[in-house]
């Protein structure tokens, strides 16, 4: 079926589906006098004037009052006595220590500017990267001239937010072997769904492991979930560089060899296919307004593979909606199967 055209409907059907259970966690708590009938509040809307509640993200309390007023349009959430409003769409707000995936926007004399889906472009100083030939090497004027050989426009990298400046611009660093240039894979953007703690529904969640390796039929696949909602799925890095802790010399090897390479290793078609599948599923997950984290991805991926296998058997692959369709189907089965 080459083309599928659906009748018009609300953009994210899943929103309702999900919106129910957030209603529940409102209703299960008696005695919360919420003015707004639904759990959706809009900026300026009074959430409650009951002094027992504490204001959290996305709310504020006008001077000498106890009324909590929403500052964003989003879902109302309560954890114990803390009221917070989680925006429907939020741009990523960087926080120190975040692992982010970014794209080089421009190259300056001593630094790069990087798009990390935040309102402001982040910056990566030349001084904050591992220079080839070993971490211990001192930066020279030559490096400045060759700055483009490390990263140039369009390059993808995984980095950590090192510091935040007054205007909320982040500056990054890649001074660790798990950071650096990204290659051998596919990039997926979940812009608007990023935003760490707040994004309980849809998008990437801050968790203990932002990067993990996925076992697939064809081989291992690395997944980097940038907290900023940028995701990179790639062929698994050959052991020897980040697995076992390495001696400084062979480490220098690793650094100088591949750290700034913009050349792909040759990837077996099978692996490439699975990489594409995973990144497609991730898009589907967001389409369904689901959280994106390690265990969800693993479950959906396995589900999807099963599904495909069965369809092959039955030979019927009539489905609309592409990625989202698949994910919905898989999730459906998962719910049923508990």
């Amino acid at each position, binding site marked *: 079926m080459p083309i599928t055209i659906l009748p018009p409907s609300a953009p994210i059907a899943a929103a309702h589906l999900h919106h129910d259970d957030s209603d529940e966690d409102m209703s299960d708590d008696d005695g919360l006098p919420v003015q707004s009938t639904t759990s959706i509040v809009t900026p300026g809307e009074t959430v409650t004037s009951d002094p027992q509640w504490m204001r959290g993200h996305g709310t504020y309390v006008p001077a000498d009052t106890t009324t909590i007023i929403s500052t964003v349009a989003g879902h109302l959430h309560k954890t114990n006595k803390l009221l917070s409003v989680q925006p429907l769409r939020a741009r990523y707000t960087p926080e120190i220590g975040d692992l982010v995936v970014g794209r080089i926007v421009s*190259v300056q004399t001593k630094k790069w500017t990087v798009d990390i889906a935040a309102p402001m472009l982040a910056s990566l100083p030349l001084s904050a990267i591992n220079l080839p030939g070993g971490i211990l090497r001192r930066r020279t*004027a030559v490096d400045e*001239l060759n700055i483009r050989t490390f990263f140039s426009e369009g390059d993808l990298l995984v980095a950590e937010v090192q510091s935040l400046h007054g205007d909320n611009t982040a500056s990054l660093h890649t001074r660790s072997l798990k950071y650096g240039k990204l290659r051998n894979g596919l990039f997926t953007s979940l812009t608007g769904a990023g935003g760490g703690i707040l994004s309980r529904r849809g998008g990437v969640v801050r968790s203990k492991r932002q990067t993990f390796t996925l076992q697939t039929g064809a081989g291992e696949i690395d997944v980097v979930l940038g907290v900023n909602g940028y995701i990179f799925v790639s062929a698994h890095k050959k052991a020897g560089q980040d697995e076992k802790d390495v001696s400084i010399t062979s480490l220098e090897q690793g650094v100088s060899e591949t750290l700034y390479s913009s050349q792909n290793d040759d990837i077996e078609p099978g692996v490439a296919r699975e990489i594409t599948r995973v990144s497609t599923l991730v898009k589907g997950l967001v389409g369904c307004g689901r959280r994106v984290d390690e265990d969800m991805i693993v479950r959906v991926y396995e589900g999807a593979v099963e599904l495909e296998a069965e369809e092959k058997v039955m030979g019927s692959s009539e489905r609309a909606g592409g990625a989202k369709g698949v994910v919905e189907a898989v999730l459906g089965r998962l719910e049923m199967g508990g």
Partner: protein
Amino acid sequence: MALPTLALPGTLLGPASKYAPGPGTHIHDASIYASIVGTVASSPSPNTTTTKLPLLSISRPGDAGPTDSANILPEVDSQVLARVTRLGARFASAEILVIAPANATSISADAAVCSTPFTAQIRREDIRATEKDKVTVQDSFRVGDLIRAVVISLGDQGGYYLSTAKNELGVVVARGEGGEVLVPVSWREVKDLRTGRGEARKVAKPF
């Protein structure tokens, strides 16, 4: 297969297994084709690291003389003549007027005149080889000076990076306020012969 003497873009020159592609050629499914109009030349491979095969190249007819200010871009190590356009605290700006082909020792006949000058910068630390920390831009160049320099980096969108940190590099023609000629008297000073007034420059060692 005999090589043609003249070639047009798209002319088949030979299999990539027998020749290496040089300037003015390109590879299209495993054969070498010409990519510009010109005369075909085959020469032994310059550096054996990349390939051992004889190098096929095509020279533009005009290149024989500088009259054809053909499309030569500055590249790293190529020597240039530039005119200083601006002085800053940390670098001087200049416009490249003439480019000698890469690693040619001097501006000679086969240098190319730029139809449009290329903007370039000379960072303070690249002005002089020794005592870099003592250098000041003001005492090395003046706006309007003609300098000989080498390209050390293609730089970012701003412009190319030049260096004069060699004896034979630096100011070759300097003029005073009145446009009078200043003659080099030492590697760091030029003088107006009439008034005897001297000015500081990073002077290029005359050939």
